């Protein structure tokens, strides 16, 4: 006898296997139609290669593997393809997916099969190709494409092939009966696998509760090097990791593969499928499925064509609908309940279980965890199920991960033993799904952000270059005019003037480069903070930016002396002083920015702490900091926009009016800026007021709500005033720069601005309404839970009704909000496009970007909103399920579906927007491809 090991924990549920082993396996009658999902495996769904209306024969390829990890699908009957459409598929979440539906012609006409007659001398590639083209996937559980798994040898050295014949789940006997009936097929299949994997030992692990199958296999394996290892019956010994530990004493490392420790594991059903594919050329079109549970009057194993609708099997098994408590696909420990009988049998369907109420009574009420530790004693993964449960319940997903949540194999042993009837696995699934979702989102957001910023930096760079060129051209064309008017001095100054133009250009370039560098720095820092694994990209960008800046600096350095030496000494002094002032102003601006940041941080902490007085104080600090910053910025701007002394040196005699206009323009710009700041501040004020309003609404304090509402109103009035002023300023462009195109643009801008303001108002109202309805929902929910706790039925009903109305309202509000936001996007996008077309002198791409950035932001908001809705719906569903109220469940499911749809839409939009951007962004295209493949 071979030495075996034990694994920690495990349970001994009643086996209930004898019910379905009384009769031999028989072929189920041909189904009238089959529904073949394009994805019955892990990996990418297959690509259909038939058209609707096409006639197909049994065994014909109808969908081709798409990508490395994917699997072929074959017609399991002969007939006509009647549809390729979404259809309900067997999945724990009850979702739908694309399926090929074939109506039988009753003939069962097969395609020509091409066996590999002499497989013993066939090459590894031939065998692998045959297995891959037969569409074979792991038939025990997840459905991992077998050919891919068998290929692991290319990368790992494998010494042990394990055939998983444990079949540890209660009730299921499909493997057991298959082994009894076709032991040679199992052994031959194992031999083929040995040829593929070339292990030093091949072990068939089988639980000792299947004496007939053991005997049959041992007989068939005589004379081969294949060893049948009998292991004690204990659930979940058939778990891949557990079986490997039992047979080899090795532990598959967390997050690793069996191949990492030199083992490949295949299920017996898969082995038989391999045998059929190689020696008979038969693709995977049928499998053995157990019909069992006392609600079936005929409990037996059948060979079933894939895609057979379950209702045909129910008929075959003489299903007693009234007696059944539920209908499961798979076993009682890991199977999932089916939500309809229109679902097909798929490659991984090993059992249909229809227990009666006596067998599987309705789940008992969940009691508090008493920390009895029974779950821990039972857990084969040696986790702390009760801790994981606490964390999942408290939404402390990070801690749950630290406690190795992802090593949980969802075997259900913990929930089986839990005396408090806590549906532990459900909690883990929830937590895992949440964590995956969050990860996914974080990654997506990070990617989008980097892309966005890169693009922004590039556009700014380009713009700056363009502007520099323009200026240079203008300077060049202005020179001939000044030259004749100038006195003798101008003759000597023409060369420096060139230098000056060059210098200006360089300066502008430098500014752009500095901005780019800053952005790149930021992106890098953020990437680092988010722990992004793809830091190379931002790093590179940062380095490039730095390089560029250095280049320009050095150029500037050489250009400067030549310019100042050429200019009059007095001028050089002035210029030096100015430079100094500029520097100081810059420093002051930077300092004030830092102060703002600090103040903001302090405010955030204060808000988190929730100390009212503190928050107010911090807000005041922030305001002062901002005011200071504004002042500093103004000063800086003034200094920068004041005509440079070097420029005055060359141009004093040329054009006085131009200088005047310049000054005017500067003043106007200043005013404009202040107005803009005021507008922004007022907007921020509105936001703050709104926030306060929402909190007040949530708290439900009437008086407070009123006060806050008033505050919002005043804030809005202020904002409107500010907007008016801004508009007025924008309407009266400085006299220096009037041009037809600009005038047009201004008019247009005014119009859109008005429109926008209106829209914004509507949007805000909608937002408030949405928030209010959310608060109402929350209140209703609270009331409902209270009612549920008090156990008053009529009260519960009332509350439920209230909740549904509230939800309806919320949805309406959300819809409206979404609509408005879309509208806003549209109007914003349009004027931007218009101005682009009309005014070539303005910066079209920048406006475009801004508009798009806004649209992106809004899309993000919508996405977030729908996501929260989705989350809520999921939660509500889970709650409904726990309460076991069928009506509520179906209702919640509908809501969930709606939310999912909306979420998908939002995501689509987001994808479009980001995709759009990506299309524009030629620089990051290559990078994008990289991240996509990750």
């Amino acid at each position: 006898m071979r030495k075996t090991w034990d694994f920690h924990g495990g349970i001994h549920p009643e086996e209930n296997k004898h019910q379905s082993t009384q009769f031999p396996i028989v072929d189920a009658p041909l189904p009238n139609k089959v529904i073949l999902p394009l994805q019955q495996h892990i990996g990418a769904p297959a690509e259909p290669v038939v058209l609707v209306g096409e006639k197909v024969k049994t065994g014909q390829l109808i969908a081709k593997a798409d990508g490395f990890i994917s699997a072929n699908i074959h017609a399991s009957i002969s007939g006509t393809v009647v549809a390729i459409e979404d259809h309900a598929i067997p999945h724990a979440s009850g979702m739908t997916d694309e399926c090929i539906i074939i109506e039988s012609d009753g003939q069962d006409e097969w395609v020509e099969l091409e066996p590999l007659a002499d497989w013993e001398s066939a090459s590894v590639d031939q065998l692998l190709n045959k297995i891959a083209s037969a569409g074979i996937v792991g038939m025990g559980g997840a459905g991992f494409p077998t050919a891919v798994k068998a290929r692991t040898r290319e990368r790992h050295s494998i010494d042990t092939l394990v055939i998983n014949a444990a079949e540890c789940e209660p009730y299921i006997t499909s493997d057991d009966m298959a082994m009894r009936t076709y032991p040679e097929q199992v052994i031959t299949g194992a031999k083929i696998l040995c040829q593929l994997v070339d292990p030093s030992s091949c072990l068939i692990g089988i639980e000792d509760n299947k004496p007939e199958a053991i005997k049959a296999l041992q007989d068939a394996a005589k004379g081969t090097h294949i060893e049948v290892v009998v292991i004690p019956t204990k659930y979940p010994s058939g778990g891949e990791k557990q079986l490997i530990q039992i047979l080899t004493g090795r532990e598959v490392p967390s997050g690793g593969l069996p191949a990492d420790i030199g083992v490949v594991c295949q299920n017996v059903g898969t082995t038989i499928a391999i045998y059929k594919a190689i020696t008979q050329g038969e693709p995977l079109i049928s499998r053995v499925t157990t019909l069992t549970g006392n609600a079936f009057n005929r409990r037996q194993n059948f060979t079933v064509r894939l895609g057979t609708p379950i209702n045909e099997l129910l008929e075959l098994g003489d299903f007693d609908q009234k007696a059944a408590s539920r209908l499961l696909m798979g076993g009682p420990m890991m199977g999932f309940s089916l939500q309809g009988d229109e679902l097909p049998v798929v490659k991984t369907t090993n059992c249909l279980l229809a227990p009666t109420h006596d067998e599987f009574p309705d789940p008992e009420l969940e009691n508090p965890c008493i920390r009895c530790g029974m779950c821990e004693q039972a857990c084969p993964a040696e986790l702390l199920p009760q801790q994981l449960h606490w964390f999942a319940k408290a939404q402390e997903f990070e801690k749950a991960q630290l406690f190795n949540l992802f090593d949980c194999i969802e075997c259900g042993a913990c929930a089986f033993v839990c005396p408090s009837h806590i549906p532990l696995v459900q909690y883990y699934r929830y937590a895992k799904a949440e964590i995956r979702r969050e990860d996914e989102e974080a990654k997506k957001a990070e990617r989008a952000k980097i892309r966005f910023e890169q693009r922004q930096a590039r556009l700014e760079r380009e713009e700056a270059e363009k502007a520099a060129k323009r200026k240079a051209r203008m300077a060049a064309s202005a020179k001939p005019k000044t030259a004749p008017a100038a006195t003798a001095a101008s003759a000597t100054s023409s060369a420096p003037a060139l230098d000056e133009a060059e210098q200006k250009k360089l300066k502008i370039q430098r500014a752009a480069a500095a901005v780019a560098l800053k952005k790149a720095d930021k992106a890098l820092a953020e990437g680092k903070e988010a722990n992004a694994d793809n830091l190379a990209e931002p790093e590179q960008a940062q380095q490039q930016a730095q390089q560029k800046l250095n280049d320009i600096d050095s150029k500037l350095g050489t250009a400067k002396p030549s310019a100042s030496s050429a200019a009059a000494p007095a001028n050089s002094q002035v210029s030096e002083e100015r430079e100094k002032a500029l520097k100081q102003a810059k420093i002051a601006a930077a300092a004030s920015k830092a102060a703002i940041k600090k103040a903001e941080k302090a405010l955030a902490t204060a808000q988190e702490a929730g100390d009212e007085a503190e928050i107010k104080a911090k807000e005041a600090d922030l305001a002062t900091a901002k005011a200071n910053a504004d002042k500093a910025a103004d000063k800086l701007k003034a200094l920068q926009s004041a005509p440079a002394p070097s420029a005055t040196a060359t141009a004093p005699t040329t054009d006085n009016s131009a200088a005047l206009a310049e000054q005017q323009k500067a003043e106007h710009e200043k005013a404009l800026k202040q107005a803009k700041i005021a507008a922004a501040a007022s907007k921020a004020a509105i936001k703050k007021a709104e926030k306060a309003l929402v909190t007040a609404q949530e708290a439900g304090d009437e008086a407070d709500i009123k006060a806050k509402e008033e505050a919002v109103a005043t804030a809005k009035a202020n904002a409107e005033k500010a907007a008016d002023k801004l508009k007025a300023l924008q309407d009266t462009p400085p006299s220096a720069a009037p041009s037809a195109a600009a005038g047009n643009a201004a008019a247009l801008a005014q119009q859109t601005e008005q429109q926008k303001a209106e829209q914004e108002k509507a949007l805000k109202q909608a937002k408030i309404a949405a928030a209010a309805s959310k608060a109402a929902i929350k209140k209703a929910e609270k009331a409902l839970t209270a009612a549920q706790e008090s156990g008053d039925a009529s009260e519960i009903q009332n509350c439920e009704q209230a909740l549904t109305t509230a939800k309806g309202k919320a949805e309406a509000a959300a819809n409206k909000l979404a609509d408005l936001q879309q509208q806003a996007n549209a109007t914003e996008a349009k004027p931007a496009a218009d101005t682009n077309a009309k005014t070539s002198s303005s910066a079209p791409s920048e406006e475009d970007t801004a508009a798009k950035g806004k649209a992106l932001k809004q899309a993000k908001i919508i996405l977030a909103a729908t996501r929260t809705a989705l989350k809520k719906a999921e939660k509500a569903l889970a709650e409904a399920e726990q309460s076991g109220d069928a009506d509520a469940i179906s209702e919640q499911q509908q809501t969930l579906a709606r939310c999912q749809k909306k979420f998908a839409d939002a995501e689509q939009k987001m994808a479009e927007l980001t995709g759009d951007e990506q299309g524009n962004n030629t620089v990051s295209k290559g990078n994008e491809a990289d991240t996509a493949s990750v």
Partner: protein
Amino acid sequence: MAFIRVSSPHLHRPLSTHQVMRYVILATLPGLAALTWIFGWGSLINVILASAFGLVFEALVLMARKRNPVPALKDNSALLTCVLLGLALPPLAPFWLVLTGSFVAIVIAKQLYGGLGNNPFNPAMVAYALLLISFPVEMTQWVMPAEMLNGNTVSLSASLQAVFTGHQQVADAFTMATPLDGFKHKGELMADEYWRLDAFAAEKVWGGWAFASVGFMVGGLFLLWKKIFTWHIPVAMLGSLTLLSAMFYGSDPSNYASPMVHLFSGATMLGAFFIATDPVTAATSNKGKLWFGAGIGVLIYVIRTWGNYPDAVAFSVLLMNFAAPFIDYYTQPRSFGHKKARKGIKHDA
């Protein structure tokens, strides 16, 4: 049948919380019987009174917390707490002592912490400790064993009288200090001198306590066999207590009590199998349970030998309850496929 969505697993072991609690309550019966046999009706009256008070308190608190009291009452957890309290209190304790104890156990130590599963300290022991500190006289008067009263225990009516009217004469006539208490206050006497002082009484008293202890041990072994709890806590606790007492007894038998005295008198056995094993307040992993149990054993010895209180199960258990979360953090099992176990609270990635 409706096509409902139910999460796996669909099978469940037929053992629920209320059954677990019921097993534990049943397992106290041999000990209770032994106590009653030896010390008369007192303990039984205690248990019944405490249970009645406790259930009423539980129902009242739950109603005050606006919860349905029925499921909580059905889970037998309050009953178990009160049974354990009743067993720990000295027989013939006045009824108000029991009432106060039940109140503290159920209302303060259990429900105010959030009810079943959320209480960090063993409720029965919280109540016991509080009573011991507040009413040291009542709490240290233990009834004499039957054999010292010529085979007659205190009659039922006398017992009831003592309990409800606090008839001091009844109580005084039948009570004495426990052997541990006596040993503690033996003064300058050598150990064997103390035992010889009143050899007859010592033997009787000692025998009575040992008998009751065996009763609790039997019940505990039954629970072990039923896999209601694992062996780790009782074995670690009794082991460390034995080891320590053997060491000191071996080095100086005239001043220290023998391991047998420590194991089979006082609340050692009750504590080892029924109190320390309370899952809610104990450490969870197997390794953690070993530390937890060993800690209790050590503390019991230390407090009994050098502390101010004759018996120390309650304080030791409470102290280790305090340490349980900490122990849990440092004794996490190594999960399957991991090189080593995670330790501590830090977020080491």
